[in-house]
């Protein structure tokens, strides 16, 4: 059931090709958003540490929390895409 979503096999069937494009588009757009978000987090972190280097230890925990919360958004897209691919 799950077997054919990966590679070139999809191109042989029109419907599967459409699904593959949709899955790839979903993940791609999802990672676009997460990329902006992660860039924002680390950018702000660099600014914050540059202004107040003594706060670095306290900020690190919050930084990684924000990183993981943002990064997970891509994988919601991935799981949603895989679900749509398998079920539809």
């Amino acid at each position, binding site marked *: 059931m*799950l*077997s*054919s*979503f*990966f*590679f*070139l*096999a999809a191109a*042989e069937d029109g419907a599967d090709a459409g699904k593959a494009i949709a899955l790839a588009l979903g993940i791609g757009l999802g990672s676009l958003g997460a990329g902006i978000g992660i860039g924002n987090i680390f950018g702000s972190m660099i600014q914050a540490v540059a202004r107040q280097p003594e706060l670095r230890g306290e900020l690190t*925990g919050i930084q*990684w*929390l924000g*990183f*993981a*919360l943002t*990064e*997970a958004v*891509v*994988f*919601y897209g*991935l*799981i949603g895409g895989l679900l749509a691919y398998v079920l539809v």
Partner: protein
Amino acid sequence: MKRLLSALLLAALVLPTSALAAEPATKEDKGAFISEEWELHEWVPIHLGPLNLSINKAVAYLLLGALCSCLIGIVLMRVKLGRGPTRRQAVGETIYEVAQVQVAEQGLPTKAIGRWFPYVATLMIFIWTVNMLGFIPLPLSDEKVTIAGVELPTLAIFAATSTLSVTLALALMTFVFTHVEGIRANGAWRYFKSWIPEVPKVMLPLIIPLEILGQFMRLISLSVRLYANMLAGHMLILTFVGLIIVLENVFLAIVAVPAAALFYLFEVVIVVSIQAYIFAALSAIYIGSAIEPEH
């Protein structure tokens, strides 16, 4: 030492593929072996009525993970206090400090740390161990390879946390503890009232379903975050190594194996620890916010 380690790493990444290459791949199902990694075959079937408690690959990894996290606790935390701190003690204290300062004190109110610190620290160590075991090639897989007449399971990487049922069970524990602790600390009426923010009365029919839905969305986001991170990490590595077999070109290994090794290092160094930390920290924050609601 470093060269030996990197050579071992490469061997560990390449060895499972040689076993895969022996398999006759039909034309339609070239990429199938990747999704077959997540098919769980029953090793020791145990059926209790409608319950299926069979031991499969994920259960074996979980049992191993439980054993290893117990060992980590015993080896690193039960240290004889001597004159100077040994390295073992230093590592144990670092883990304890992360659990105490970064996880428990950030989420839990001071009065609840004594009761809930063991839970969040156990979550952190257990999830870290299971995630980490998922990136060490172990001879626990469904495929067999014959070496010198003896049938042995092939080396494979598989994390128990890359199956949804495991992460959902962990998230369900946090979910149940959150509400039990919230009701116990505040009383049922005050606790459920604290879910609803102060808004104009007209908005209430809109806000209340959203807030109740939000409580269940926590369950989904907590479990799917860990599951999807581990699943995607393993898929990336397997896909890159698998490209060699799918495209039937050995020279692709020049590109594919370093790329897979890069993803492997990224997962092992960053993602494994971050996900364990996040799961424990969010559990602490949820439980803490149930004990002391903001309103």
